[in-house]
């Protein structure tokens, strides 16, 4: 196995862990972090796929850069929403019980 393949496997594991945590945890901030980990894992998969060819595949690298921008965008949106929800006490309780 080459280094790139190891990274590929690692990326798959990170995605799986992140997605499982995202679907099972209740706490909103923990969910957001799990989503970020899933995102990081999927970008890692893309990078390691790019690294398997010589020279490194520029198309896949470009995907990763755009993916990073989108990750930042959704993290910010989610963080704003979470702050607003947790500033409203009754909403927070409602979410925890559902």
């Amino acid at each position: 196995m080459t280094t790139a393949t190891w990274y590929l496997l690692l990326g798959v594991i990170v995605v799986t862990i992140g997605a499982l945590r995202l679907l099972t945890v209740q706490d909103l901030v923990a969910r957001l972090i799990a989503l970020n980990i899933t995102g990081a894992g999927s970008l890692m998969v893309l990078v390691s796929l790019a690294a398997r060819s010589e020279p490194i595949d520029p198309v896949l690298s470009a995907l990763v850069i755009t993916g990073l921008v989108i990750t930042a965008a959704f993290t910010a949106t989610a963080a704003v929403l979470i702050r607003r929800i947790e500033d409203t006490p009754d909403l927070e309780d409602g979410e925890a019980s559902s």
Partner: protein
Amino acid sequence: MTLAEFSTGALVLTPLLSAAVMALCTHVLRRLLGVVVAVLIVGFTVPVVIHLGSGEVVEVDLGAYGAPLGIVLRADGLSVLFIAMTSLVGLGITAFAAATPEATGERIQANGQSKTEHAGFWPLWFGCWAGLNAVFVSGDLFNTYVGLELVGLTAVGLVALGGQKSWPAALRYLFIAVLGSLLFLVAVGLLVSVTGTLDINQAAQQLTDNPEAAGVATVAMVLLSIGLAMKVALVPMHQWLVPAHSGAPSAVSPILSALVIKGALFVFLRSWLYVAAPAYSPALTETSGEAPLNVAEALSIVAWVFALLGLIALIVGAIMALRQTRLKPLIAYSTVAQAGYWFLLLPVVFMPTSASLGDPGVTTFDASEVIAGALAGTVGLILGHGLAKSALFLTAGYFKELYGTEKIAALSGEARSHPMMVMTMGLTAIGLAGLPFSLSFTGKWQLTSASLAGGHYWILPVIIVATLLSAAYLLRAFGPLMMDNDQENAAHPELHRNSMPVVAQVAPFTLGVLTLLTGFMGTPIFDLLEVGAPWS
């Protein structure tokens, strides 16, 4: 650059630019600009449709860099039908929102009072529209991903306009939508790593030429299907949809239900029928003799799983809809149910002639005819749903704005005071249940006959049961409104506001009428779909 090429680009860039400009305008100016831009978009749709009508695909190489390096916009039959539906529905929703700004959301002012009007609706809605059109005309998988993210994030913002109560629903939607997109992104990465290109047509060609890419492509198709099915809210991944769609402001619910989920659905159909099917469907690869059989088997299992989930969605969604007492959740569950229809075609596409039947004997259909027919039927159902569902959600929004309630029991006997709105509901019910002569009926007919021609007899009972169930919950919603109140001074719901503008009645009514009118246009619509299809 011809007019059709210009318009294809303008369909994406006009709403995007206007969203940016709107963010700088005052509220009144936003409404005005919104109507102007919506009319412009409908105007840009016309030359593209006309060009496609002549049987040619519109292709634009932005900056004259060809694929795989450059960004290619490509409008084929499938794209242009989705664009046309989005333009019509979008214009109706824009008119409704411009006429009743109270329907655009709820915001908390500095003094702590909440005000039912949200100027943030306009940039978000046009950003969403730009994303949808970008998805529809994108010639490569990566722009598709970017378009989907734009749609997803603006849709989350739109849900959040509903005020405090809708924030948890918005956040939940965001988690699901982003997770779905990430799965799609990984699938795109896998496809690129075996095909070396992002361009949709080139990728399909590469998969056909390299049988050894089949294993990775199968994994990619599975990931992509799960990710997109999350965004379309296929059962059992539908839980997020109902709070998000029913809790959103009146002008936002139709956007979400009629348009936003169609973006992901479009990509789903594009990947299965235009990328995977030409390479792996046994029916289409027979001629080339290179059919990798084990892959075809693996993909047909996936196809059956999704069709089965579609069947479950049709039943579960309808039963849940029957149990609702308020209009908007009922309509939202009806979306969950209808989503089931759109996945039934997969087994038909992957096994156009079912082996269990033996020789059908009477007529023999070409496999490509069966596939084209099944897709045409499904697209008919999708377009019909878009028109009818937007009209229905706008009607529900109309009553909610007028009376401040959407409880079905409280609205009984409304046919007398609002004949036009109740008429609209009747028209959309015909459209959603798929009774003749709506577009959904044409689509259902086409899908069923194509499936039967392909030897898939199971689809007949499925369609019949689904139609009966949808008629049941739609009757449950509209029956009370048609009923005459027996008591003379029956408790009429208290008016939330004195009157509604005429446009707020005309917009949903026009969309409702369109669900019927388009039913007569089945043949031109299905001919358009053939343009640029891999099997024609």
